[in-house]
């Protein structure tokens, strides 16, 4: 289905990532946003507050992030597409309701414009240290989808994609921005509404009295939804539940309920994952990066190429599910991987896990507050290439 032209500001713009995210949400059909002020994400909801009355949307500033992250779920169960927007400290508070969204299978979007942490950390400066929290932050076992934009244009594009994936898989989707992409201003092209693909919610066609909220159909692992007021008089609960949505406190019910909410993402990982890849075919070293760090990595890669090193680039646009199938393929012929990130090692450990020792992995850590010096990444590429070349010489 195509986007509703109402509110789609087609054409070229000069926008920062936060404002681009707002426009992406409007293009995606989001009409309910609840938020709580927090740097460096506040510009998203400020623009929403100004734009929503003009496009038939409802913005409410809630009393805290706990409230914001569940108000959006109430709105979704009444038929809205909804999101909330925050940064690290607020994201911590939202963990409770990321778990609820996973358990109720509420399609919704959480935007985290990451800053330095832990705790209050660096409110106005970038970090990428919430990426593991996005995956594992709520208690219990579940899967989510997380996307990582590296530009204002991608903040727009991936906000739409986040809403589409949320609807397709009935899962909370995290848009893991960072302070740099949030506040960097660049050209953003908003397409014509008829060129924007939108995934609509799949509603049940069951007759009144026959709808079971968690009954899947055919091969699909994602049950169709309903909304309050449609006459199905359904029940949903954060307790482990059966197809009827009724609580069942047994290990068997747990296996059935939780297994499916995990498998619906794991078994579709190859369909969900998107990557940007360049010159990985004949490389000795591949730099793996995401978000703003990718832009710095490109500079380091250019320096390495100028020094005669065969180096490729793999940019993770999807952080979760992790691109393990592609990295396994690359590890068949790539000797070393270099991973810069604005933390002391988070996605890097996922990379190491997937490599299973078949290739060397080099972390380029950084505590956040600014981006890497490309020289440091370049130095690690040199080190990695030296080891690979030495190893080849010994063979």
């Amino acid at each position, binding site marked *: 289905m195509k986007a509703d032209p109402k509110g789609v500001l087609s054409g070229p713009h000069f926008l920062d990532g936060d404002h681009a995210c707002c426009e992406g949400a409007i293009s995606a059909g989001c*009409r*309910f946003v*609840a938020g709580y002020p927090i740097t460096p994400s506040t510009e998203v909801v400020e623009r929403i507050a100004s734009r929503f*009355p*003009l496009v*038939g*949307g*409802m913005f*409410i500033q*809630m*009393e*805290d992030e*706990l*409230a*914001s992250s*569940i*108000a*959006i*779920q*109430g*709105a*979704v*169960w*009444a*038929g*809205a597409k*909804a999101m909330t927007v925050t940064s690290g400290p607020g994201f911590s508070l939202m963990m*409770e*309701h990321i778990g*609820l969204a996973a358990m109720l299978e509420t399609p919704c979007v959480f935007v985290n414009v990451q800053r330095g942490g832990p705790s209050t950390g660096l409110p106005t400066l970038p970090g990428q240290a919430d990426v593991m929290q996005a995956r594992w932050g709520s208690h219990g076992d579940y899967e989510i989808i997380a996307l990582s934009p590296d530009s204002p244009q991608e903040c727009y594009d991936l906000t739409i994609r986040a809403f589409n994936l949320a609807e397709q898989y009935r899962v909370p989707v995290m848009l893991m921005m960072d302070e740099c992409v949030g506040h960097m201003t660049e050209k953003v092209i908003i397409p014509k509404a008829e060129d924007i693909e939108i995934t609509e919610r799949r509603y049940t066609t069951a007759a009144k009295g026959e709808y079971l909220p968690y009954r899947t159909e055919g091969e699909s692992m994602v049950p169709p939804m309903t*909304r*309050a*007021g*449609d*006459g*199905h*008089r*359904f*029940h*949903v*609960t*954060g*307790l482990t539940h059966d197809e*009827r949505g*009724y*609580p069942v406190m047994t290990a068997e019910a747990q296996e059935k309920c939780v297994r499916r909410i995990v498998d619906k993402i794991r078994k579709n990982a190859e369909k969900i994952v998107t990557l940007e890849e360049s010159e990985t075919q004949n490389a000795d070293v591949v730099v793996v990066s995401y978000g703003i760090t990718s832009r710095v990595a490109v500079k380091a890669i250019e320096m390495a190429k100028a020094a005669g090193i065969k180096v490729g680039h793999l940019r993770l646009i999807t952080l979760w599910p992790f691109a393990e199938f592609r990295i396994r393929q690359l590890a068949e012929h790539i000797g070393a991987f270099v991973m810069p990130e604005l933390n002391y090692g988070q996605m890097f450990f996922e990379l190491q896990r997937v490599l299973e020792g078949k290739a060397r992995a080099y972390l380029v850590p950084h505590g956040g507050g600014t981006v890497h010096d490309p020289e440091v990444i370049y130095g690690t590429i040199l080190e990695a290439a030296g080891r690979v070349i030495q190893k080849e010489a010994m063979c």
Partner: protein
Amino acid sequence: MLTPANPVHKYLRMDRIPHIWCSGCGLGTAVNCFVRAVEASGFPLDTISVVSGIGCTGRVAGYLKVDSFHTTHGRAIPFATGLKLANPNLKVIVFSGDGDLFSIGGNHFIHAARRNADITVICINNFTYGMTGGQITPTTPTDAIAATAPYGHIEEPFNLPSLAESTGAVYVARWTSFHVRQLMKSMKEAIQKTGFSFIEIVSPCPTLYGRRNRLGDGLEMMKYYRENSVIKNGADTRELGMVFNGKIICGKFVDRERPSFLDAYNAKMTERLGPSYQPYKGIL
């Protein structure tokens, strides 16, 4: 011989009965009053949504045959706020307990009242966390015994009607589970009211609060309510604080008009954006 169907059965998820509540608990009475109030209110069942938090009262949503949401601890009110704002045609009722609504959820309660979210909040106040074994809550009277106050509770409890009135609720009432007729009438009025309406129901927990404080079984506690309740409609809510084994002042205390969040929103946008503004009537 044919027995006529129980009139409340059609409002209940009979496939979930028997419920988990203890014998003598006041929750069954409250649910019974609620479904009769819904019927009397005239709203079609398909437009009713019930949202609960966590705890014994948190299970109410799961037994009512309406669109029903069993959410997280303390957060039923913000869920209900989002539900109502996305579809203002729904009648949204939060049914939860004193611990859920006023301890972990206290912040949400005062802000929903302040912004006059158009929802009804029904609080079963049994002075304890029943589901976890009888610990103190923000309404446990000073000196009462609880699992986490084995020598007696030292803190002062909230006066819920006063809290609700002072933070902005447009309708405030208190009854005990003994006052079924008055309670039904209040529930009907609250559901019909536009804006943030609040009903406190003082309700027995003979299993935990009652047993630890030697208040007898459910029947004894109901007798206590009969003998110690005083109906004072319109009473000053500041005078409604409860003390251990003291009098319980019941009645309807507040019934006033104030623009709901949505009415205020549409009025402001019309004022500032002019006639081109289409008043918001929901997402759909």
